[in-house]
């Protein structure tokens, strides 16, 4: 029993640690930029410094944390729901749907992601969100509902490939949108303002509440679908609600920051060795880990080649890919050791 209490304690400490780390990263994010830490020092005396910190640095840093938290949450839900540790939040085609939505918005409205006008921003964000949700609905339609996990995964792959091809075709036919699309495809927190932060925070609260309420169901599902059903769990309703969480969380994050790879996939994997916990704890910790990961990546992206900055999606792809390679290498080594 002592060991079980120790495990709960580990979960609590990790949660607190990740929260503090997130806070530290957000504060660090407020001091990084082309004017350096000077703006932070003069924030109370210089209106321009205040504007730089409050209107530019803080929203993008807080936005990076919130988008990462949404992706981390989606990753833990996707891996639990599909009973596959390699499941990704983009699995149901939401990323390709969002890309196509943005591509079509750029073609029809001629807007650029670099534009800062609020209406334009809402237009692009809205297009990405509608695209993500439409792609998930299309996946559900092709899979004929949420009953069969394998059919759902296959439908997600098909929708992802087809919509991805349509985005590429759009860019090929209207080359003017290519540069603007690139900013979206590479992922960036540069366009996140306070409105986006509030929107993502509200969606995070809603999704976290639903995911936590259904976490017992995810625990049951890990014993297999038949066992979960035999325990009296309402599988169909539960799956539908969790897919809605997945679509909403992923769609909102992608709409605000573009395509950011690996955060959703890696966050639960980083949590598992640190704290053995049931899905309720895993979803919350993965979300906090996702927030810390994307905040750290955003900080690095802005600091590495300052005053220039790297697209944060590129950085997460490189770091996340490296991490997965290491994970693969470690598991191969462990398996080889077991066989020997």
């Amino acid at each position, binding site marked *: 029993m002592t060991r079980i209490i120790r495990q709960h304690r580990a979960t609590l400490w990790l949660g607190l640690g990740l929260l503090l780390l997130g806070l530290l990263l957000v504060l660090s994010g407020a001091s990084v930029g082309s004017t350096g830490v000077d703006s932070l020092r003069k924030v109370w005396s210089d209106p321009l410094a205040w504007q730089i910190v409050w209107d530019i640095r803080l929203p993008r840093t807080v936005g990076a944390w919130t988008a990462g938290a949404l992706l981390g949450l989606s990753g833990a839900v996707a891996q639990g729901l599909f*009973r596959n540790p390699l499941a990704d939040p983009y699995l149901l085609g939401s990323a390709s749907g969002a890309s196509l939505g943005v591509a079509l918005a750029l073609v029809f409205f001629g807007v650029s992601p670099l534009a800062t006008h609020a209406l334009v921003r809402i237009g692009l964000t809205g297009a990405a969100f509608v695209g993500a949700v439409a792609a998930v609905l299309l996946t559900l339609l092709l899979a004929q509902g949420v009953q069969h996990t394998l059919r759902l995964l296959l439908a997600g792959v098909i929708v992802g490939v087809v919509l991805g091809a349509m985005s590429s075709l759009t860019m090929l036919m209207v080359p003017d949108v290519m540069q603007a699309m690139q900013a979206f495809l590479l992922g960036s927190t540069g366009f996140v303002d306070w409105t986006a932060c509030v929107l993502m925070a509200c969606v995070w609260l809603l999704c976290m509440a639903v995911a936590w309420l259904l976490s017992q169901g995810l625990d*049951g599902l890990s014993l297999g679908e*038949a*066992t979960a059903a035999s*325990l*009296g769990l309402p599988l169909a309703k539960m799956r539908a609600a969790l897919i809605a969480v997945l679509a909403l969380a992923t769609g909102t994050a992608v709409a605000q920051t573009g395509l950011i790879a690996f955060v959703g996939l890696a966050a639960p994997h980083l949590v598992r060795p640190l704290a053995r916990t*049931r899905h309720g704890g895993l979803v919350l910790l993965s979300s906090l880990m996702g927030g810390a990961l994307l905040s750290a990546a955003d900080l690095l992206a802005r600091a590495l080649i300052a005053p220039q900055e790297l697209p944060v999606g590129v950085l997460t792809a490189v770091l996340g890919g490296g991490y997965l390679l290491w994970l693969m290498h470690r598991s191969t080594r462990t398996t080889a050791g077991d066989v020997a």
Partner: protein
Amino acid sequence: MASVAICARGIRASLGQTEVLRGMDMALPAARWTSIVGPNGAGKSTLLKVLAGLLPHQGEVTLLGQSLATLPRRRRAQQLAWLGQSEISGDDLTVWDVAMLGRLPYQAWLGAPSAADQAAVEQALKATQAWDWRARTLGQLSGGERQRVLLARALAVQARVLLMDEPLANLDPPHQADWLGLVRTLVKQGCTVVSVLHEISMALQADEMLVVADGRVTHQGACADAATHRSLERVFEGRIAIHAIGAQWVALPIASAP
């Protein structure tokens, strides 16, 4: 005559386009152990899923006198426990957490486990000798150890009917013998046990046997009956022979001529 725990009439079920169960009728006695046997592809596991209400089907199944179709999900989960062939993925769950999932049908949504839940889990883990690993995760256990934890999860339900599909998978002979003892104890306590078993000699230890072939029930009777042995030899096309060793029946495979 013994009362009936599970009654099935005109059961038909398909997997994809293939009809697997082609009209099955049976009445499984309460407080007895019934084993279901038959050749590969006979429909044994499908039948067990139908009896547990886990697979869409035609025909009617009643559990302890109530129609399974109209029985509320939670009530069914309290009366019938299911142990399927391993499809587990929850390597991160501790043994204690897995066994506690067996108490879900009794708990309020997200409610904390009651003292009765804790006691049921402790009893189940001790009965399967998995108590010492309660703080370990499933990922840290061997195949046989996991199987004992999953059995504990099913026992923790404390249901009146226990359905098990290949429960001896991965168990070594001493633990198979323990399982046998456990099943006999459960039956003595009034529990109805229905199991699908590939090992005919183990299946012959049951009270009753349901022999299935080609999606139909070909025989139902006591394991000690000569008619049951003949039926078994027939569905396995004469490739097994049933012998008595002491007070037990064993099935031996007959090798085909080279």
